[in-house]
């Protein structure tokens, strides 16, 4: 008996798909920020659910609450002041939805067919990890998708946050007994990266007049 409630973990994990899609597809950057905030709360919930395995995850849950659910959304909220509408993306909602469904199906099939490649935990944790990994990989790829197809620099930062969340979900699923020092390091570097990126994007808006990454063409190979 692991003490983990699988149905709770599965629900929280699957909700991450919806919040990821909302964060990528919301044209209003503040709405996207709110979607990201909800995802951060889901990550905290997942960490708390896993904390029965490892008390260190309680610290990580607290760190994630401060960094992912408070600081990052606050930075994003400030960065979008006065420019809430996203630059028109390369790929619209309909195609994105189809891509998401295909992605989720592919990841589910992949992680279940090759679970032994990744999952080194035993028993009930293994079956939980299989679903989590499918979700984690989907969130990760959605983050990469956002970075590649969104023209707005702030939206690419949201994509980066999603990508990191995907890795963090896989980390807690594959290695729930990891030590708190490693977890604190990972959580802290994300928030600092986001802060610095948004600081530079502020400079880009000041010099280029917008946050459209298509205008960043001063440097050619």
């Amino acid at each position, binding site marked *: 008996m692991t003490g983990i409630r699988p149905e709770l973990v599965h629900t929280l994990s699957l909700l991450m798909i919806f919040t990821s899609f909302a964060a990528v597809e919301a044209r209003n950057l503040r709405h996207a920020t709110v979607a990201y905030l909800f995802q951060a709360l889901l990550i905290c919930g997942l960490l708390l659910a896993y904390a029965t395995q490892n008390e260190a995850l309680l610290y990580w849950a607290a760190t994630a609450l401060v960094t992912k659910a408070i600081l990052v959304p606050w930075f994003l909220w400030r960065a979008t002041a006065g420019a809430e509408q996203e630059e028109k993306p390369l790929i619209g909602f309909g195609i994105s939805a189809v891509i998401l469904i295909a992605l989720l199906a592919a990841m589910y099939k992949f992680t279940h067919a*090759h679970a*032994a*490649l*990744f999952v*080194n*935990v*035993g028993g009930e944790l293994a079956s939980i990890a299989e679903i989590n990994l499918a979700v984690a990989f989907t969130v990760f790829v959605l983050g*990469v998708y956002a*970075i590649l197809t969104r023209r707005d*620099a702030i939206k*690419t*930062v949201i994509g*980066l946050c999603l*990508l*990191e969340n995907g*890795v963090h979900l*896989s*980390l807690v699923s*594959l*290695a729930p*007994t*990891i*030590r708190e*020092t*490693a977890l604190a*390091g*990972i959580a802290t*570097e994300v928030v*600092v*990266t986001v802060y*610095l*990126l948004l*600081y*530079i*994007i502020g*400079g*880009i808006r000041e*010099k*280029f007049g917008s946050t459209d*990454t298509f205008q*960043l*063409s*001063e*440097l050619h*190979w």
Partner: protein
Amino acid sequence: MPFETASVLPALVVIIPAAAGTLIFIVGRFVGGFREALAVLGSAGALAFSLGIGQAALRGGVLTSFRDQFRADALSALLVVLVSGIGFLATIYSLRYMRHHVQEGGLTHTTTSGRLTAYYGWLMLFISTMLWACLSNNVIMLYVAVEASTIASGLLVAFYWDKRALEAGYKYLMLLTVGITFSLFGCVLVYATGANILGGSKGLLLSELKSVAAMFPKTTVILASAFLIVGFGTKAGVAPFHPWLPDAHAEAPTPISALLSGVMIKVAMYALVRTVSMFYPSFAPVAMFALALGVFTMVIGDLMALAQDDLKRMLAYSSVSQIGYVLMGFGIGTQLGVYAGLFHLLNHALGKALLFFAAGSVIYATGARRISQLGGLSRRMPVTSFCFFVGALAVSGIPPFNGFQSKLALFVAGARAGDWWAVIIGIGTSLITLLVFAKAAKAIFWGQPDSAYAPTVREAPLTVVAAMVILAALCLAIGVYPKSVYPPLKAASAVVQTIKTPTPEMVAKHHNPARAQLRSAAEPCR
């Protein structure tokens, strides 16, 4: 046999520049010259303690701090001395160079004092995080330290805060963070598998993981290696993950360019080698993949360098090419190959830092960096032109400079391993490198000077010249007397090679029937 000793040195090497950086941020705005003094002290302190680590490593010692979280073996010691040495020279070089650029450059973002405070503060943190990465024995913290070095250098890349610098800074932070996140996936896989065999937090320690890496399932090895190569390879500037590199290295202030090209990409290469090489004995195709990627990188980098008119951009692409040679050495996978890879890593760090310093000296004197706008500088800047030639010949692999020795070692290692195709491409690419530098040197230092700057051009200040002369002397000294670096390189390459094959007892002890595909025997790499 290496002997392990608990020591404060590894911790101090990281803490001293970090503390100097923090102090600079706190008091730098209020006490002008204090920030420069603190930066020099911080980098000198790191160098002094790094030399202590190097000395211990030469005696066969392994120093550990914080319950084995920091671990300085011969490989770490080599990198730590290199990072702190070039870090110290970059700090000295910055003293006049940055003041000149901040005062002359019309920076309006904040006050001059504030800009210099930010510069030296981030510089110290940048050096500290690179040292941390070289000393971390924790596989997850290795990723954290490598990413921290990206964070610490992000604002340095965007330092000039104009359109070009901001674009370079955005691409640098975004592309590297995405790339390095792949390596976190790799680190997580390695830890999760290793912890299952070793049990508990031992699975986090690189020194423990390498002893059981041969027991990892083959498919896990493939996946983890792919993630690690993409992740750390992106930061190392390995093609095709290199597009961030020319932008960042060209737009950053020159001392930072020297650090990025000279040591930062080497730290990422170190992280790649430290993690991926543990799979060499059990899964040789990983080494072959690294060799192919290295050869591809060296060719792409040099072809791109040939097409550049921007001096710093040309040097940046040349770094891509040379990191390909380093990867070639590690890809050959034999002890001589690893030795040659480390030798070239050392030589390129010295040569490329020297070339960036010389380029900075030219920019300092003329304000121009387009090769087509420069000319006839050899008479007015004799030391700079001499140092540029030394760096160019060293990186091109021409005797009697250090690059010749390491490239020769690489080609011999490749030939002995039967990788003739890589050797032939490597020699051909070296000729392209020579062509790139001959073309640039002729355009910059010979011919007639541009009338726009000719009357005012004179040699760069003492601190700039001193940093160049020290590096030029090292390039020549190692080239003439390569035996001087043989002991540390031999010890460092032995660390990469001393991956123990699991004994039958170890396999039996750790064997878990539920974990399929444990490898009971390891095959030699080649």
